[in-house]
């Protein structure tokens, strides 16, 4: 469990806090989506979860370890995998497989296991066969997959991904969302930061941030069904919501739904 207890954080020199009084629990075997406008504090939240940033007040506990405890910061970071927003700036290796191996190498994983971790991680993101490719020769979407593979190879308990599908095509997007579902089923806690409310609808829990504070925390349907809150937060409704709204306007009684399956189910009744 990752627990945020009344966490506030202000960047040095910034006028207002990037995260203000945030309380949140990220459970294992669950998928949490984080949405919010640009600058609402999503990336800051990711860094706080990993202990890369330490709260000014309140605390973040990862499986009972305080991220402010410098002696145990590597414990925290090996438990929480982080995929940053810009893939190009987080690829360290000169070829694909070296980059995937970078994290486990740092953890001191023995060489035989390194091999299998690298090939497993590459298989999961669909980059098998590109082991010897140089990163600058990859497409943006492939770089994004590589960044995810690099985090997966560390076998973290929790994985925080900052807009991991932003540059992916439809197929890549489906693949990555499938990977996230798989991780959740394998008992990992997944935090998926996204601009796409359609993707957020698939989560168990959605957190909407507004200027660093919690604007909504609960089931996706509750946020997606609330058109005025969505507009207030600068979020765009996914197509399925637009359809549901149209149906309501045409006189159908449609409950709050967040996915196509739920809508079909509701209409059947």
């Amino acid at each position, binding site marked *: 469990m990752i627990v945020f207890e009344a966490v506030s954080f202000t960047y040095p020199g910034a006028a207002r806090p990037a995260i203000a009084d945030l309380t949140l629990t990220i459970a294992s075997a669950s998928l949490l989506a984080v949405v919010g406008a640009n600058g609402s504090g999503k990336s800051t939240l990711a860094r706080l979860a990993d202990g890369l940033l330490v709260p000014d007040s309140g605390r973040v506990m990862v499986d009972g370890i305080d991220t402010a405890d410098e002696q145990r910061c590597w414990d925290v970071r090996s438990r929480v995998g982080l995929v940053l927003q810009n893939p190009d700036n*987080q690829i360290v290796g000169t070829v694909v497989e070296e980059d995937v191996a970078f994290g486990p190498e740092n953890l001191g994983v023995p060489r035989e296991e390194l091999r299998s971790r690298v090939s497993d991680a590459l298989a999961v993101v669909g980059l098998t066969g590109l082991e010897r490719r140089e990163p600058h020769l990859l497409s943006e979407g492939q770089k994004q997959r590589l960044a995810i593979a690099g985090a997966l190879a560390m076998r973290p308990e929790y994985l925080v991904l900052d807009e991991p599908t932003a540059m992916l095509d439809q197929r890549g997007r489906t693949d990555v969302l499938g990977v996230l579902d798989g991780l959740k089923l394998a008992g990992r806690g997944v935090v998926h930061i996204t601009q796409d409310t359609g993707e957020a609808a698939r989560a168990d829990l959605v957190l909407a941030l507004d200027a660093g504070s919690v604007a909504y925390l609960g089931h996706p349907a509750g946020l997606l069904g609330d058109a005025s809150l969505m507009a207030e937060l600068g979020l765009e409704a996914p197509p399925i919501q637009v359809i549901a709204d149209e149906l309501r306007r045409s006189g159908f009684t449609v409950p709050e739904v967040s996915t196509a399956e739920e809508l079909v189910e509701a209409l059947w009744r």
Partner: protein
Amino acid sequence: MKVPVTFGQYVPVDSPVHSLDAKAKMGLVAAFTAALFLVDGPLGMVAAAAVVAAAVVLSRVPWRIALRGIRAVVMILMITLAAHALRWNPATVALVRVGPLAVDAAGLKEGLFFVVRIVLLVVGTSLLTLTTSPVALTDGLERIMRPLARVRFPASEVAMMLTIALRFIPTTAQEAEKLIVAQTARGARFDAGGPIARARAYAPVLVPLFVNLFRRADDLATAMEARCYRGGVGRTRLHESRMRPRDWAVLCLGTLVLALVGITL
């Protein structure tokens, strides 16, 4: 306007020299350099030249590329030759004499000896970078420097630094290209005017390039920390080039031959 994305001088072909372990090659280059400075007769120079020629042929690097390194030292070669061969008002008999300036036969011989030594040194050592990929070179360097860790030399960190530089050279070159295209689209000219005007045209490219470089460095540091990088201590490696029996054999025999050449000739 094209910024070359390939860099360094590595010639990627298959050859016995290419497949030799980087550490063995470094050892041989060191032995070769030592031999070159021990040799003190023309016969020794001929033997050293034969060694270099054989290595170039084996490496299948085109002669044009193998000899390219000489271009950089032409000035040094000319100065060396002049310093040895030219005499001011010599008492001895000279080969050629122009006023007080004369070319001395013994000096010319000596000068040529030094010129050949520099040429062989350049061609021989550049064969290392021509036949070893930058990645293999960095790995080999780290391995060789590792004993220095005992005297607190950060060998692993230096190797990491080189790796990151290698990783970001092409990315930065691509970015420079993008910036040049963007500035050209806005009417900037990179090919007009004198050298100063041309240099000035690059300012709008270099400034954002450096700003981005610093931002990149910041992000990269965060990403490395997130992936638990904490220096070389306790780090394992996916690839560690191992010296195979063949590498040892080539290194030992090669060193032996070079030692014989250096000592006897």
